[in-house]
């Protein structure tokens, strides 16, 4: 099985490749820009429009590559954090480790009867009380963001309102519960018993 260091190396190689592609696209875009201006000076309107079309396509590609670059950055930061915990002997815990059957393990704060579903784009997991609708009685664990480098958790009450650690609905600054570096997080007062 690959170690965190192996994964970090692989992600680093992907990032390097992405950066090279991004640099190539930036250069090509700059050249297309110059070409467009030269055609424009010559009064070649068709060729000017064609060069502008190429430039826009290249810029669009560059934006996609920049997004991929940001994502690999986040993956590297996350892998580095996990690797640091492994090396320090601490618990290396992903937000929701898999069970032997490959399903997300039930994290703290989730009653045993609740169902789980995963995003189609890998950004989070949600557990929900069977039979509840919308956001009612759900716990959602989300991947890291700039503000929450270890991810964050959202707890929703029976009315579908996000709640803070005091167990009450509140402003969004209080209802995004940060995940700590070791993968743990606080549970709101009065939240469901794990053993429910």
């Amino acid at each position, binding site marked *: 099985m690959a170690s965190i260091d192996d994964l970090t190396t692989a992600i680093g190689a992907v990032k390097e490749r992405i950066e090279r592609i991004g640099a190539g696209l930036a250069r090509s875009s700059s050249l297309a820009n110059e070409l467009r201006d030269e055609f424009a000076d010559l009064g070649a309107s068709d060729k000017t429009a064609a060069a502008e079309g190429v430039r826009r396509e290249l810029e669009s590609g560059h934006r996609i590559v920049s997004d991929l670059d940001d994502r690999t950055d986040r993956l590297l930061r996350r892998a580095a954090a996990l690797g640091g915990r492994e090396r320090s002997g601490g618990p290396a815990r992903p937000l929701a480790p898999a069970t032997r059957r490959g399903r997300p393990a039930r994290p703290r704060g989730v009653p045993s009867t609740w169902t789980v579903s995963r995003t189609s784009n890998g*950004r989070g997991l949600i557990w929900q009380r069977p039979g509840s609708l919308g956001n009612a009685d759900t716990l959602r664990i989300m991947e890291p963001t700039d503000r929450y480098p270890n991810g964050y958790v*959202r707890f929703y009450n029976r009315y579908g*309102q996000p709640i803070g650690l005091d167990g009450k609905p509140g402003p969004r600054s209080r209802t995004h519960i940060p995940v700590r570096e070791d993968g743990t997080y606080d549970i709101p007062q009065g939240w469901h018993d794990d053993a429910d």
Partner: protein
Amino acid sequence: MTQIELDGQTIARVVDQPPLIFETGGGWTVTVESALTFSDANGAVRHLEGDDPEAVAAMGPLLHGLTLRASAVEDGSLRLTFTSGAELIAPPDPDYESWGLTGPAGQRLVCMPGGELAIWDAGSTSRRRAEGDAFSGEPRSRQ
């Protein structure tokens, strides 16, 4: 751009406490927690915060009974237009989730901090009991 199949849905209930939550007769729920702009049928524009109790209380009578004409997400912004000509726009928030949608078949869309979307499709094969049997839903959303 992500199209959402809310067209023709009528807002049947608006929760009067924050965040702004409204439900359609077809079982969709829309939640807005951060800044939003609402333009009514007469063109009057209101800039509100979805977690402000007074703003949420004021939105109830404005939204209740409106029928959606079109709905779309672009660059993390949710845009709902109504048959009356009213419009609601909820842009992404750099630090917090700004808005979310849930559908009758388990569809779920969340605008994460910064505008990235987290998407749960109906009928996702990963949707299972945490330690138990699989169950399925019918795919209805169009991404």
